């Protein structure tokens, strides 16, 4: 263009327009190609992950069929039965105690599990982050191995440990410390121990990820200003790794809330959690609309937890920039 001297202003505008237009078109083609590449995965995910959730939403508003399944008749009984029950004799309404207690147990045990995982996981993440850099990966590896081993097997290992005829009770009896085996299996305690055991790596890994970025010169500065170890921990370390703590808590809380295998094996029929109650509606209990409504209730609880997380993350982000 410079070879032709100074072009007229309109020409410049036109060519810039054309350049802008072709750049725009090229960008559009590129975006289209990128979306196209993602499409096969998205189709599979829609068919086997998102789509079925929509169908479940519909099912939660239908009537229960006599032998499982549904009848195509609108009804809110499914949702109604989540918290309420109708007495079969005198038709009075009351709160469904069984469901409420299961819901309460799910939330209580998940919170307790999250707390225990934090108490164990935070020092561990700190320990790993303060190792020399070349050793950290190895320690991290030791946390990752149980994370990727079969959850069923790890739950099974806990069960064998705490059974009445298990390793702990047998050992205690043979040492003469107890006469009768201590009932540990099939209690809330067993479920909590089991969940803590299986979800512990999920707490350690994100806290470590935050901790790794921690500038330990700040800790040093704290000591230089006569802070005690505890003060340094509470005022410097914890606030700086808070995003990791929040992420770890969410990563433990969410699967714990929806746990199925661990409470089924360690809690038995009397110490069910929400996941087991849902599973039951599609097995012997056979009330599909109720099962669908319970699933969506669980999903809503998880979404609330996620929202709190997202808001917390945004806040801490804003706090850092501000």
């Amino acid at each position, binding site marked *: 263009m410079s070879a032709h001297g100074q072009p007229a202003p309109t020409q410049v505008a036109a060519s810039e327009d054309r350049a802008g237009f072709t750049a725009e078109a090229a960008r559009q083609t590129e*975006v289209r190609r*990128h*979306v196209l*590449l*993602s*499409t*096969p995965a*998205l189709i*599979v*995910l829609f*068919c*086997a*992950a998102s789509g079925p*959730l929509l*169908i479940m939403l519909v099912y939660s508003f239908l009537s229960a069929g006599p032998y499982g*399944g549904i009848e195509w008749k609108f009804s809110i009984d499914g949702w109604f039965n989540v918290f309420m029950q109708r007495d079969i004799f005198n038709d009075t309404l009351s709160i469904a105690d069984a469901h409420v207690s299961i819901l309460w147990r799910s939330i209580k045990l998940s919170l307790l599990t999250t707390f225990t995982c934090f108490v*164990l996981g935070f*020092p*561990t993440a*700190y320990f790993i982050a*303060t190792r*020399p850099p070349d050793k950290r*990966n190895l320690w991290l590896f*030791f946390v*990752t*191995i*149980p994370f990727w*081993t*079969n959850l*069923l*097997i790890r739950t*099974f*290992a806990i069960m*064998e*440990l705490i059974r009445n005829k*298990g*390793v702990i009770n047998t*050992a205690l009896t043979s040492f003469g410390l107890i006469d009768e085996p201590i009932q540990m299996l099939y209690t809330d305690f067993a479920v909590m121990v089991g969940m803590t*055991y299986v979800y*512990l790596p999920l707490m350690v890994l994100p806290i470590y990820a935050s901790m*790794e970025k*921690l500038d*330990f*010169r700040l*800790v*040093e500065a704290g000591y230089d200003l006569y802070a005690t*170890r*505890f003060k340094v921990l509470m005022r410097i370390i914890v606030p700086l790794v808070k995003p990791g703590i929040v992420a770890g808590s969410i990563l433990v809380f*969410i*699967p714990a809330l*929806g746990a*199925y295998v661990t409470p*089924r*094996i360690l809690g038995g029929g009397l110490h069910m959690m929400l*996941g087991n109650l*849902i*599973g039951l509606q*599609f097995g012997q209990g056979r009330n599909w609309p109720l099962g669908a409504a319970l699933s969506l209730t*669980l*999903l809503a609880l998880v979404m609330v937890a996620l929202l709190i997380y997202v808001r917390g993350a945004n806040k801490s982000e804003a706090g850092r920039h501000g």
Partner: protein
Amino acid sequence: MVDMSNSSQPRMHRRPFSVVTQTGFTEMAVICFVLLYAPLVPLVVYSFNAGSSLAFWEGFSFRWYVAAWNNEMVKDVTIRSVYLASVASVIATCLATLAALGTTRTKPYKGLTAIYAMINQPLMVPEIVTAVALLILFAGIKQATDYHGMAYLIIAHTAFCIPFAYLPIHARLEGMDLTLETAAADLYATPWQTFRRVTLPLAWPGILAGGILAFVISLDDVIITQLVKSPGQNTLPTYMLGQLRRVITPEVNAIASVLLAVSVVMVTIFFFLNRKNK
């Protein structure tokens, strides 16, 4: 960035105390590591028990491994598990690779967040919820078509394996140098040649890692398999879950120990693949 934490270390010796230690933290970490591994010890040890107890040691023997090996049921479910995990992880890895190519190596575009959300959905929704939703959908299809084959399990497993395969591939592609592809294009390579000779070899460790992860995840799955499978389609984990209701013999320990060993080997390979990535 990583070395920051070490800047204080040379001075550590001159100080009366280490800057980085907190009271009781190391002890707690030791407890944590012991807790992570201790429960697995009796599991493995008693799989070699000569007697049929899980708490009394009666001598060393491979008896239960032989029993498991000769158990036709175990053979059957193992083959099904491996078949399912192989097919699902291969499909999931291919789809995840395409999706990772489609979500990296360009400026963020409109709808990218939605694609991320959709790919990661199986990680956010509790597994029991997905399992129940799939049960509802597949029950309808089973009734309508009278097809009860493995396709249901394969589709279900493929779907929840996609995010696990996607993560390492995405991470790998994200860190890749775009100029190499531009250079290839400048040297008159066709898009396919560029992909085959430049992009694919560079992304390969990530793809392999994603495939392994997907395989392990599929092999370990209990809940979705349990609710989606038709009668007679037990996999190794659902078979074991069923066995727990009966009198447990060390045979279950033997199977669990083998599965444990397989997972450890896979994770170790994954770990080294990922380390090379960095």
